[in-house]
């Protein structure tokens, strides 16, 4: 069995403030880093130290929030809270037989493309000299990976979009983009969980709630999930909303 420190010799640890510590595993977007961040996140949550509050996984970092007073009063090894928490985390044992992460089937997100729901679909198609159908086909065939959540509640940063669809942001952001809007910005695609201002090219909309505070898991997606978009008609969209 190896400790976290031995297993990740390249790991950088720094304080975010007096209440949080960040573990940095690298500085790229990759499936490998996603696995590392997810594995260590689970390890910490399954072995909570005194004063642990919560964790925030991101592309290449994992941030751990704690209650400094509880850490200070604990018998964790170290002089300051930052040392106590980092010593404790870095000495966690990585299990030899790591749980095989069995690939879950992708979360299906129905999307009605174009029309009033996707006002920028034709512009995106023209930009890439593709038909509208081809854009829809490329966008709804790929399997995406949720790398992290951020920006607004329930917003998932998705990786895996076909680069032929990469499109610049709108020159002038819209003052209001409806919740459920599916957009493209650069090489990223994503779904707006809430009605917010936004500069992404909007190609469609899902009738699903990406964020609902009344659900046990309010965010539909979580880091590590796989996602696929499913092309639905305007009528099917309306039916979804009715149910």
């Amino acid at each position, binding site marked *: 069995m190896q400790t976290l420190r031995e297993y990740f010799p390249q790991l950088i640890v*720094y*304080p*975010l*403030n*007096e*209440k*949080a510590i*960040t573990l*940095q595993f690298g*500085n*790229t*977007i990759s499936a490998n880093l996603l696995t590392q961040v997810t594995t260590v996140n689970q390890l910490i949550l399954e072995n909570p130290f005194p004063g642990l*509050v*919560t*964790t*925030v*996984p*991101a*592309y*290449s*970092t994992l*941030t751990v*929030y704690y209650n*400094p*007073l509880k850490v*200070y009063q604990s018998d964790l090894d170290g002089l*300051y*809270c*930052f040392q106590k928490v980092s010593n404790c985390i870095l000495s966690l044992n990585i299990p030899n037989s790591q749980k095989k992460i069995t690939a879950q089937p992708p979360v299906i997100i129905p999307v009605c493309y174009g029309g009033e729901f996707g006002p920028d679909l034709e512009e995106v198609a023209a930009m890439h000299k593709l038909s509208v159908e081809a854009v829809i086909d490329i966008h709804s065939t790929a399997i995406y990976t949720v790398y*992290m*959540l*951020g*920006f*607004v*509640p*329930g*917003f998932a*940063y998705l990786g895996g979009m076909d680069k032929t669809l990469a499109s610049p942001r709108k020159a002038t952001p819209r003052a209001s983009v409806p919740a459920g809007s599916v957009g493209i910005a650069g090489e990223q695609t994503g779904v707006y969980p*809430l009605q*917010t201002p936004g500069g992404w090219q909007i190609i469609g909309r899902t009738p699903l709630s990406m*964020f609902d*505070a009344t659900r046990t*898991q*309010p*965010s539909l997606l*979580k*880091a590590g999930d796989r996602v696929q978009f499913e092309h639905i008609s305007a009528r099917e969209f309306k039916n979804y909303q009715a149910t």
Partner: protein
Amino acid sequence: MQLTIIKPSVLSTIQDMGRWAYLSQAVPVSGPMDSLSARLANIALGNTEEAPVIEFTYGAAGFKVDTPAVIAYAGEGAILKFGNQLLPANRPIFIPVDSIISLQNSSRGSRTYLAIVGGFDVPTVLNSYSTYLPAQIGGVNGRALQTGDVLTSKENLTALNKVLINSLSGEHIAYPNWSVSKSAMGLQNTNVIRVMAGPETSWFDSSSVDRMLTSGFILSQQSNRMGYRLKGPVIERINTSELLSTAVTMGTIQVSGNGELILLMADCQTTGGYPRIAQVASVDLPLCGQLKPGDQIFFKQISQAEAEMLYIEREQNLQKLAATLHARFL
């Protein structure tokens, strides 16, 4: 106990100590902009730490007490008055039925916290009472308080709540001669905000970092509960790498693409992609929460260890303060 909002201030919301359990789903912490004042108002009443309070932004607000009530307020945004009678901050105050209490603007700061014995009775959403307007969650139906809103207090009272109610209740406004003051917490009103180096401080040209620590910065009009844009010298980068989105927190000072400082506050996003030049020491965040557009601030660097010691000291002082009140009355 019950009160009715006659006039909300520019922005009045219910807040508690924050929504910490859903950060990984990108739900912000929220909570008071000046958590020290919010906590002092609760401590003065013998409330628990979690009791929800009202955060008023500036004054020009008022409420009517529909039943006899015991309240406390703290903060720098307004002074409470009953007619022409000034009501002192930082202590329990008995208010007789049907009294109308007004909040008069104070030039000292921007936010005032009103606590009631037991705490305001609103439902929890995702383990917190805090209002977060962009997602319309928490507080009263996820929105800011409006004229006519009726707020009741929770019925579950602490022993100290009961003692204070019994000792102050009567026909007229009544309050004790003691108070729980901010100055006893080692916090002076100052425009010097202590900061620690940020994770990306080395991405900036050293003379820019020096300028940040020696120049004044002015809070712009583009400032709200999410964050403040600060006007001052342009901060120049020497490392132009793209920062992958990573965790940010209240007090994080980011540098935007045009070299402007952004100080993140209570409703800030859970993650951000601008490099972080500095981090405000938690003990000085209450000072930041009282700033208003046009105010000038200066930064002074301290070490992480120093910031942590100051934090522990502040928390222990708050615990002692609550314990002293308990010892005195129970």
